[in-house]
């Protein structure tokens, strides 16, 4: 006699077993919790991890290693993620050291260059050289230059003892601090600008009507005498009852020498570079008009160049 139930019981057993296996693997005993990757960290922990990558990069100047570490975080755009965090850190002001390290990393990622490792003589500690130095280390002396900048530094590249010494000066960078304290984390690049340390002069000041900007901006471009963008330049904006600082290079997608500041309509601003140079007064937004008669706010474009 043939069994009317056929082989359905086998399929039932398979399905029941499958369900039990999935419940056990996903609910009862899932994969160990301690095996996660940095990509799954909570957002604030990711920020801490990213800041640590930047601090480490500022210490050893190893850009490929920093990039590999950033890739672990799974950000769609590493450069943007670092630049955005640098902006937040500068605005926050709670950790100037990390803010500067993030700026340095953002600039290096945008530029694709590897800065020399930085050690700090000013910290009071005696940083020891690497056991096998692969390249000369940068020694930063908190030597205030004859400018008004409180954060100017002189960067001297020193070769290992057996390699002789050929000091060269690099590009001084301003500190990402609101306190005005002397700090010693430079924005170092392998390619010094043609006129390192030279003050910027205002080359162009143009009121522009560009509806695509969406809001009235003060756009700042800094470049060296060869026309190459200069990141990490501190810009100071002052208005009645307020002051703000920002840096070029934190929006690498718009250029390493680019920075902008949102103006409030009706407010008059004065802008200068923290390292000194010519202040630009009377910056205020004004209305522009399209051919159809609709109105929008215009912006200022200021180009600073090293002579």
């Amino acid at each position, binding site marked *: 006699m043939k069994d009317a139930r056929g082989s359905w*019981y*086998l*399929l*039932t*057993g*398979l*399905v*029941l*077993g*499958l*369900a*039990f*296996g*999935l*419940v*056990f*693997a*996903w609910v009862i005993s*899932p*994969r160990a*919790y*301690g*095996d*996660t*990757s*940095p990509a*799954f*960290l*909570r*957002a604030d*922990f990711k920020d*801490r*991890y990213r800041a*640590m*990558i930047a*601090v*480490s990069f*500022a*210490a*050893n100047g190893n850009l490929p290693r920093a990039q590999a*570490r950033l890739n*672990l975080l799974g950000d769609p755009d590493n450069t943007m993620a670092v630049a955005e965090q640098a902006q937040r850190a500068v605005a926050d002001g709670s950790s100037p050291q990390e803010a500067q390290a993030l700026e340095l990393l953002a600039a290096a990622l945008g530029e694709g260059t590897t800065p020399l*490792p*930085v*050690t*700090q003589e000013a*910290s009071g*500690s*005696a*940083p*020891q050289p*690497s*056991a*096998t130095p692969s390249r000369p280390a940068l020694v930063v002396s908190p030597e205030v230059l004859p400018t008004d900048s409180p954060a100017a530094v002189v960067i001297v590249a020193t070769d290992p003892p057996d390699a002789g010494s050929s000091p060269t000066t690099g590009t001084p960078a301003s500190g990402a601090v609101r306190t005005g304290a002397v700090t010693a984390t430079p924005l170092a690049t392998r390619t010094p600008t043609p006129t390192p340390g030279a003050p910027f002069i205002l080359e162009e000041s143009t009121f522009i009507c560009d509806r695509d900007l969406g809001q009235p901006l003060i756009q700042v471009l800094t470049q060296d005498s060869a026309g190459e963008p200069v990141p990490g330049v501190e810009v100071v904006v002052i208005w009645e009852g307020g002051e703000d600082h920002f840096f070029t290079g934190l929006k690498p997608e718009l250029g390493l020498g680019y920075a902008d500041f949102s103006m409030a309509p009706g407010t008059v601003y004065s802008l200068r570079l923290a390292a000194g140079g010519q202040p630009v007064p009377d910056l205020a937004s004004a209305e522009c008009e399209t051919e159809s008669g609709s109105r929008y706010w215009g912006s200022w474009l200021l180009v600073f160049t090293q002579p």
Partner: protein
Amino acid sequence: MRWFRFLLMLSLGAALGLIYGWMVNPVKYVDTPPAALRVDYKSDYVLMVAEAYQAEGDLELAARRLALLGDRPPAELVREAMVWGSQAPYPEGDMDLLTRLASDLQTWNSLPGAPAPGETRP
């Protein structure tokens, strides 16, 4: 015989379910704390702290950074990273950095009045 076949298929299904749930499509944790990182990622974080410490020389700051990885003593975290580094293996220069940090933390922990990991001084 019938029950035997049924149990056989039940076991086969359970095995397939476990393979799928543990290996093919395991549970993915999101918003995890750093303490849940896999040992190689933790070790790399410790190495970053060691790299920064080599340049900054601030042991308290290094300990605070290590505290991100949990409540365990910083020296223990560094030792664990060194064990992983010797298995990976890490380059000699990186191992030197870890060794120096571990050594300094050991001394620092034994100093009277040294703040505990994560503790902030007034």
